[in-house]
């Protein structure tokens, strides 16, 4: 099967890895954040790894006019303009914050659309630049990981539950930065999460996965409890509801 090459991102993967069967077809708009949600073990991370080229399954994938995978070719991960933020920040321990931020930037073809200063500004990284990565807080680590991914000049940004390893305080600290990123981002982004509040706040589109497949209907009631959400998430939810055409009662 081949995928027509158009704007945006599209692809399908079908195969088995470690006893898990993935059979997913998806497409992303040319810009905006698409949330990828679903129960744990549904294959979200596997799909993300396939898109990044870190896991190889039969299938096809195009990003804009570039074919990253089809039956005849498989672009190695280092040849894909993809930014990945892993669940754990996975910073390179032997480099400073600045060294981490510039590692990818130094290896990308000349034209830089995402500037170093702008990124440092956007994510509030200036006070961290000379620090060693060993003594950053969880939230700081994820901000550096995010900046590092952006500075590698990606055409597609992949984020694998970047907030799930953070405590509530660190989450609250990093969410405003993600809001700003969301507004500034000119490329498509795939954001794995199963936190309804996070999705409502940060995503423009939502894809659901179940048992290795992308499904139209999440198959579970999509009610969201407002109890326990912080004010910012509640606002995000309200905004998403308004955008979706819902009107408040009375």
């Amino acid at each position, binding site marked *: 099967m081949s995928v027509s090459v158009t704007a945006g991102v599209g692809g399908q993967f079908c195969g088995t890895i470690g006893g898990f069967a993935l059979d997913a077809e998806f497409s992303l708009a040319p810009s905006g954040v698409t949330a990828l949600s679903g129960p744990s073990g549904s294959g979200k991370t596997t799909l993300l790894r396939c898109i*990044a*080229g*870190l896991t190889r399954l039969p299938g096809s994938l195009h990003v804009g006019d570039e074919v990253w995978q089809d039956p005849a070719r498989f672009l*190695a*991960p*280092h*040849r*894909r*303009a*993809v*930014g*990945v933020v*892993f669940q*754990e920040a*996975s910073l*390179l*321990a*032997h480099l400073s914050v600045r060294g981490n931020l510039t*590692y*990818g930037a130094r*290896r*990308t073809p000349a034209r830089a659309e995402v500037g170093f200063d702008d990124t440092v500004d956007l994510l509030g990284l200036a006070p961290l630049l000379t620090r060693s990565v*060993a003594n950053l807080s969880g939230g700081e680590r994820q901000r550096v990981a995010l900046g*590092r*991914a952006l500075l*590698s000049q990606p055409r597609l940004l992949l984020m694998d539950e970047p907030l799930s390893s953070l405590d509530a305080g660190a989450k609250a600290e990093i969410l405003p930065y993600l809001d700003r990123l969301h507004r500034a981002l000119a490329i498509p982004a795939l954001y794995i999460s199963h936190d309804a509040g996070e999705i409502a706040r940060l995503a423009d589109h939502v894809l659901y996965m179940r048992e290795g497949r992308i499904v139209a209907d999440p198959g579970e009631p999509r009610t969201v409890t407002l109890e326990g959400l912080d004010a910012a998430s509640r606002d995000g939810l309200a905004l998403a509801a308004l955008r979706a055409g819902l009107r408040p009662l009375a």
Partner: protein
Amino acid sequence: MGEVVWTTLRLAGLTTALLLILATPIAWWLARRRAWWKEIVAAVTTLPIILPPSVLGFYLLIAIAPQSPLMTALHPFGVRTLAFTFQGLVIGSMVYSLPFAVQPIRNAFEAMGPRPMEVAATLRATPLDAFFTVALPLARRGFLTAAILVFAHTIGEFGVVLMIGGSIPGKTEVISVRIYQLVESLQYGEAHKLAAGVAAFSFLALLGLLLVDRRTDEAVR
């Protein structure tokens, strides 16, 4: 006496340098492969730890003797034999200390896990680039441990050098063998000097090793 110390240090230094280069790809391969049969290779590279030095020395002597297949292949290049030569001693020491180089480096690569290399790949580094700019720096303590172990182990080797070196002064005579000969000829005074030197050096090497480990622990914490 200066001569024998110099030969020993030269042997240990050269063995360490060459062995780190040789052990790195082996350790990388062992750390990254998941096939069970890689442990056969691991067992072969670890064998010198448990083989009696005389067994190892015997086989090495056969391998570097003039009529061995290995040496026959080298005859056109003007090499007849490596037995009782300094070069032969370097090769023997490398085989003898191989496990002490492979094991710490393999452990360091394994402790690192696959993630740093994946991160480097998503940041556009080619595999070779990532190896030199991510894997090697992250495994540096493993390399330091390997270097200290190999250097000290080479200083301390006796059986293998005795069998394949022949203890030729200025060429293949090293401290450990000289001490043996001094004791045989009842020159205890001379033996004391060399033996105390080796004991002091070994203590310092071990202390250095423990301090490296300590720093690693602190870095992890």
